[in-house]
Structures are given as structure tokens and as C-alpha cells.
């Protein structure tokens, strides 16, 4: 079946109005081993939105995130920054793997981005404590990464990304290793942060439910070569609370998203 971009006509979300922050135009990425991760990828990240990327394993979501962050160069197409230029300099990144420094304690790892920005230990203390509190690791501040469970490592990584209050937050399956309750709590915390700071978030996830609960827009990717196969928008003003989770609207959106994902996978 064809993978034409779906635009549900029923919605006109406010997020669509906001200015684009980054535009990817016809972006392709080939690796040295000739694997084509992305081809002809057109997508925009808009100022202040909560954008989720959804798609099958290996479709290029992480690659797209790295391109946006400027960590790798596209082999075709262009990536343009049109919005708030400060965002480009203030990026928080949660990698798919925890990526902690084995020689530093939890505190040291979370301190890192602040330290690099010239904020000393003493000064950074409250921000670090707050970030650790949020991910529930206050009592582990002196532990070393190898003494942590998988989920705890990932939470340290999340705390590290949040501690600088970045303008653009790129998160690669941050909650995949977490139990549902912790996950729900962090979902709420993340929304709270997003609202409070007014930052932009690009969020890779495998959970349809999570993406619908969190985002103002969802891009569904298809694989080989990776590109956008469907787009869904959700009213940003919709309150995201427990009531929303059980609302028929939510269930409907989840079904719609699941279908889009299934179609993207069939297209392979």
C-alpha cells in the first residue's frame, strides 16, 4: 500500500500555527557500510511543540535525532534552523543508551552539563538535587554507574538532560526501561517541565499510548529507507491528566496512531 502522508482533516491544532524551529528538507543519510538509514526525509520541528517520533525498530529515528542535534551530517538534503537560535545551543539529549561516565558518581554525571557550562559544584547542587529528586534517585547520588540497575542508569541520563533546563530536548526512548508507574510519573513530570519552561521536545518512543498522551504532534516513520509515513496532530490545550487517559478521544487517537504504525510497517 502507499505511504502517502496522512493528514487528519478533523483537527487544526494550535501547534501547527507555531513557527518552525528546524526544517529537514529531503534529508538522506547513508552510512559507510552503504546502509541507507534515511532517504528524502521532510520534517519540521516547531517552536514549543511536543513532537513524538514513532516507527519500527531500525527505521532511523535515532539517526534523525542525531541529525537534528548536529551530531552527524546528512548525506543529502538540508537542515535549516529558522526559529529561536538559542535553542540550537541549548540542547538536552537523552541517548537511547544511558551513556554515563563510569568514573563519575551519579551526582558527577548529572553535574556534567552544568560543569561544562562553568557552574561549580556548590552552585549546581540545588539543580542537581531537584533533577535527582524528580527521577527518584536522591538516595543514590554517590553511587557509581556500575552499581545501578538498568532503569536507574536511564533515569540518571534523564536527570542529566533536564538539569540545564534546555530550550530543545531530544529524547531517545527515555522511559523504555522503566516500570509503568515510574513511567507515568515521569510522563507527568516531563509535561510539567515542558509547560513551565516552554521548551521544545522531540521524543522517540515505541509506545503508542505514551506518544498520544504526551505529544502535540506525532510523526510515524517507515523503514528502509526511513522517512515520514504519517502525521497526527493533537490539541495542545487538551489537559493531559488521568481523565484524558481514559477519555474516548484518547482511545480513538491511540487506535488511529496504531493503525498508522501498522500501515507504515506494511509498507516495507
Amino acid at each position, binding site marked *: 500500500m502507499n505511504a502517502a502522508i496522512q493528514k487528519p482533516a478533523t483537527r487544526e491544532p494550535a501547534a501547527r500555527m507555531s513557527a518552525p524551529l528546524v526544517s529537514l528538507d529531503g534529508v538522506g543519510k547513508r552510512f559507510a557500510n552503504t546502509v541507507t538509514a534515511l532517504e528524502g526525509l521532510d520534517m519540521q520541528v516547531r517552536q514549543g511543540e511536543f513532537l513524538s517520533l514513532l516507527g519500527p525498530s531500525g527505521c532511523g529515528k535515532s539517526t534523525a535525532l542525531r541529525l537534528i542535534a*548536529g*551530531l552527524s551530517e546528512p548525506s543529502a538534503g538540508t537542515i535549516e534552523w529558522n526559529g529561536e537560535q538559542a535553542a540550537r545551543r541549548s540542547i538536552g*539529549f537523552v*541517548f537511547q543508551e544511558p551513556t554515563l*561516565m563510569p568514573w563519575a558518581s551519579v551526582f558527577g554525571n548529572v553535574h556534567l*552539563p552544568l560543569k*561544562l557550562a562553568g557552574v561549580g559544584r556548590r552552585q549546581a547542587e540545588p539543580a542537581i538535587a531537584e533533577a535527582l529528586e524528580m527521577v527518584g534517585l536522591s538516595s543514590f547520588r554517590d553511587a*557509581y554507574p556500575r552499581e545501578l540497575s538498568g532503569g536507574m542508569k536511564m533515569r540518571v541520563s534523564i536527570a542529566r538532560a533536564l538539569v540545564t533546563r534546555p530550550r530543545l530536548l531530544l529524547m531517545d526512548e527515555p522511559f523504555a526501561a522503566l516500570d509503568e508507574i515510574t513511567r507515568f510519573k515521569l510522563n507527568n513530570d516531563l509535561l510539567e517541565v515542558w509547560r513551565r519552561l516552554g521548551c521544545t521536545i522531540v521524543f522517540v518512543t515505541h509506545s503508542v499510548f505514551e506518544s498520544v498522551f504526551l505529544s502535540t504532534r506525532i510523526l510515524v516513520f517507515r523503514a528502509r529507507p526511513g522517512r515520514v509515513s504519517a502525521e497526527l496532530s493533537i490539541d495542545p490545550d487538551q489537559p493531559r491528566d488521568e481523565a484524558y487517559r481514559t477519555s474516548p478521544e484518547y482511545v480513538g487517537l491511540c487506535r488511529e496512531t496504531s493503525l498508522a504504525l501498522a500501515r507504515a510497517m506494511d509498507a516495507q
Partner: protein
Amino acid sequence: METSPLRWLLPVAVMAALVIGWEAIVDLNDLPPYILPSPAQVVETLIADHAVLLQSMLVTLRTTALALTFAVAGGVALALIFASARIVEFSLFPIAVILQVTPVIAIAPLMLIYLSTDTAVLVCAWIVAFFPVLANTTLGLNSVDPNLRDLFRLAGASRWQTLVQLRLPTALPYFLGGLRIAGGLALIGAVVGEIAAGSAGQGSGLAFRIVESAYRLNIPRMFAALLLISLAGILIYAVLSLISWLALRRWHESALANG
């Protein structure tokens, strides 16, 4: 295992076995002391001549310590310069290799023209010892986890910050490995330097004692001097291993208990 007495007993037992084997070889073949003295003779000589030998050992150890210090400083400094870019590494490594392979014995007489004897000995020992530090540290600086490197890039880390906070810690286990190699090399470097450039007489190091004793066919004393060098080498290695372990025990596989 850390606390097991075996950890200390076994090495001692191995050493004892070695000494007994040595004694047996001397006894069975009825070797005269000028070919291979027995351990007892060596220890006797060591005790009898301890004043002059220990003084020489101090001279040699001082040179060793200085040479090792400079080897670490020089090796790490060079590694840092190399680390600034692969192209710098390519350009300058040949020079480091030239330094490494230049036989100090050959150039010592030239150095003596411009340097004082002590300095020349030190330079010799340095030349011998710096390369492992340089090579291992360079390898370590280039073995950074690519994800962590990206993280630093994103955080807008300066070259310097990346170096100090990412690449240096990554290089630490490699550096410490190089240091353990360099420790022994600084010691033989000091000895070779003394032989190549050293002055003779009152204040001279173990190398002179060895050459002199060999010349006089006082082989037990030569072995006593060699024994001191061996002991010094083991001591240096043990100290450097301890430093390694202290630095890495919290996080690196090679230093973890069940390694």
C-alpha cells in the same frame, strides 16, 4: 581474595623456590663465584658492602624517580599535543619514535659536550622511559566512547574540557598501564645512562658498581648490585600497581575484585 594471606605468601614462596633453585644450580655444577655466585655469597657481599652499595642505590633511585617524573610529564604532554588532532599525531609520532629508538649509548658522548653529567644521565633515562607513557596515553585518549563524545559536543564543551573531563579519564587505565611499563624502563634507563654518560668515583650509581665489580671480577658484588636493582624494580612496580588500583578500583574492570 584481597584479604587472603595467599596473595602475599605465594609470591614469596615463588621467590624462595627461585633462590633455592639458583643455589642448587651453583652447588650441583660446582660453579666458581666468578661465573655464578651462590645466593648466600651475594647476600654476604650485600651485607659486607652495604654502605657503598646502598649509597649507589640511592643515587640510581634518585635518577630513576626524576626520569620517571619527567617521562610521565613529557609522555602525557606529548600525548595531549598529539590528541589535539590526528594529523598532529601523524606528523609528530615519527619524531617520538626516533627518540625511542635512538640508542642512548651512542649519543651519550655527544650529550656530554653540552650537558652536565647528571643531566645527561637523566636525559638518557628519560629517553628510555617516556615512550610507553606516550604510546599508551595516546591510545587511551583515542579510545573514547563515541556517545560520550557526542554528549560533550552537545553540551558545548570546549576542546580543553573534553580533554580534561572526558578523554583523560578514559585514558587513565591505559596511561597507568604505560606507567607500569615506564617504571621499570626508567630504572634501566638510569642504569644505562650511568653506563653511557656517568661519571665514576665517589657519588656514582649502581651501574658504576656493576661495571667496576665486573672489571675486578668481584662477581658476587656485581650480583649484589643486580639484586638491589631487581628489588628496586619490584618495589617500583608494586608502588605503581597500588597507585593504579587506587585510581581505578571504583570503576574499571581491570581493577575490580573478581577481574
